[in-house]
């Protein structure tokens, strides 16, 4: 019987593997993947004055996965001549995290824009997919006031925006299927998603079918987006830690299997 490692050693090694590159970055190259580049190109190709619905339903638990991508994509949008409708549909935590973490990170970009004219924030709206359907159908009926209590009819940006037909792009956080069902399929509005890294393989069919026009999945993809917009942030800083932790897991799988093979050869289980 080959003796197994004490898991506490693995935990310590993982701690070092994740922590060391945060203290001393390795600066490993970061190739840009196709779904990330597709979203970047989509935003670059938007005509001036286009309306983009940006769903920032970030939760505190998923902040490391969703936060940096939200910040990077918003920075890109704010650097372009597009109008942004901000909303949180996925979680009620969205507005608080937007105010405490996203807004300070994009403050310099927001300064150049006028609230109500270039962007508007509707905060959290309950109902998730049903709310999406209602918003896509008639925004003035489903969203009566913005986050500051201003009636929608008094917001200059919303004067010419009535339904999903007026949108050029929907960028959402979390799961992509509801947005495809409520924006892409009935109205043909392109949809892009900022999601967890583990969702990337599951969402590839939507990318290949053209139902998703782009995807930023996890912190690695967020780091790629930061490279594209030339604005390194939280994701770029943790890119090396991500690399080494993934490599560490892959090595452990191999070591575990070598031990398993040796144990079986010696007649153990």
């Amino acid at each position, binding site marked *: 019987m080959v003796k197994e490692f004490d898991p506490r050693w693995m*935990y310590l090694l993982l701690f070092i593997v994740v922590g060391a590159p945060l203290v001393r970055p390795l600066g490993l190259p970061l*190739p840009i993947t196709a779904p990330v580049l597709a979203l970047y190109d989509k935003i670059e190709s938007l005509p001036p004055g286009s309306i983009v619905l940006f769903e920032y339903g970030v939760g505190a638990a998923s902040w490391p996965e969703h936060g940096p991508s939200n910040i990077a994509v918003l920075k890109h949008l704010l650097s372009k001549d597009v109008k942004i409708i901000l909303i949180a549909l996925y979680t009620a935590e969205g507005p608080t995290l937007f105010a405490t973490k996203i807004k300070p990170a994009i403050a310099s970009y927001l300064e150049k824009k006028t609230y109500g004219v270039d962007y508007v924030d509707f905060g959290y709206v309950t109902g998730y997919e049903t709310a999406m359907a209602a918003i896509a*159908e008639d925004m003035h009926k489903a969203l009566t006031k913005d986050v500051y209590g201003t009636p929608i009819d008094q917001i200059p940006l919303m004067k010419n925006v009535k339904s999903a037909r007026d949108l050029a792009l929907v960028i959402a956080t979390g799961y992509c299927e509801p947005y495809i069902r409520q924006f892409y399929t009935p109205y043909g509005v392109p949809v892009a998603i900022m999601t967890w*890294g583990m969702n990337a393989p599951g969402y590839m069919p939507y990318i290949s079918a053209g139902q998703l026009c782009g995807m930023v999945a996890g912190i690695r993809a967020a780091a790629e987006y930061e490279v594209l917009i030339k604005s390194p942030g939280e994701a770029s800083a943790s890119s090396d830690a991500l690399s080494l932790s993934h*490599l560490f897991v892959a090595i*452990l*799988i*191999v070591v575990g*299997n070598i031990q398993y093979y040796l144990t079986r050869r010696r007649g153990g289980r």
Partner: protein
Amino acid sequence: MSWARRRELPLFLSAILGIMAFADYFFDIPVLHSVVSDLQVWIIILAAFAMFMGVINLTIVHGRVVMREKDIIRRGLSAWTLFLMYLMAILGLLPPITAHPSFRWLYSTTVAALDPTVYSILAFYITSASYRAFRARNIETMIFLIAGIIVILYNAPIGGYLHPGIVTLGSWAMNVPIVAGQRAIMVGAAIGALALAIRTFTGRESAWLRAGGGG
């Protein structure tokens, strides 16, 4: 009011409203469109009420524990849960709503710090599991493991640095076998969802009428 307790009423309502929403998605009928559009707005309001119901439910459940439970630790934890829930609610309602400095401070120092911490503990479990559980016991699991390792390394920036083939293989795995497998799962799930919808519309699926009940 005995008719209100009958299960036929919610079954009938769900069938009618479900069929209306279903039909509105596929057909352009202005009257139906207007009704379904109103229903969608109602659901947004109902969902907001559901959150309020959640507060009442938590108060009843934990209030009962605080009043009746003999175990001092369980009583204390329930009391703490109630205290924090109402503290967050009260601070959140201070003007400007959810933007009051005390609410933001409490959120940033507790929820925003603890949630990712708990989530990140998963990394230690995954590390341990990768060593102890992922065993190539036969050819199928060996293929699964090799594909898994390639995708893991493809998803990490270091993959391409170690060997350019990892990027090629990982990209192929993501775009060909994974897409094919996922499509099969999606189509299967969609057909299942359709069957469930038909069962619900026709009143054959009524598990949702009984809290925690089956079949």
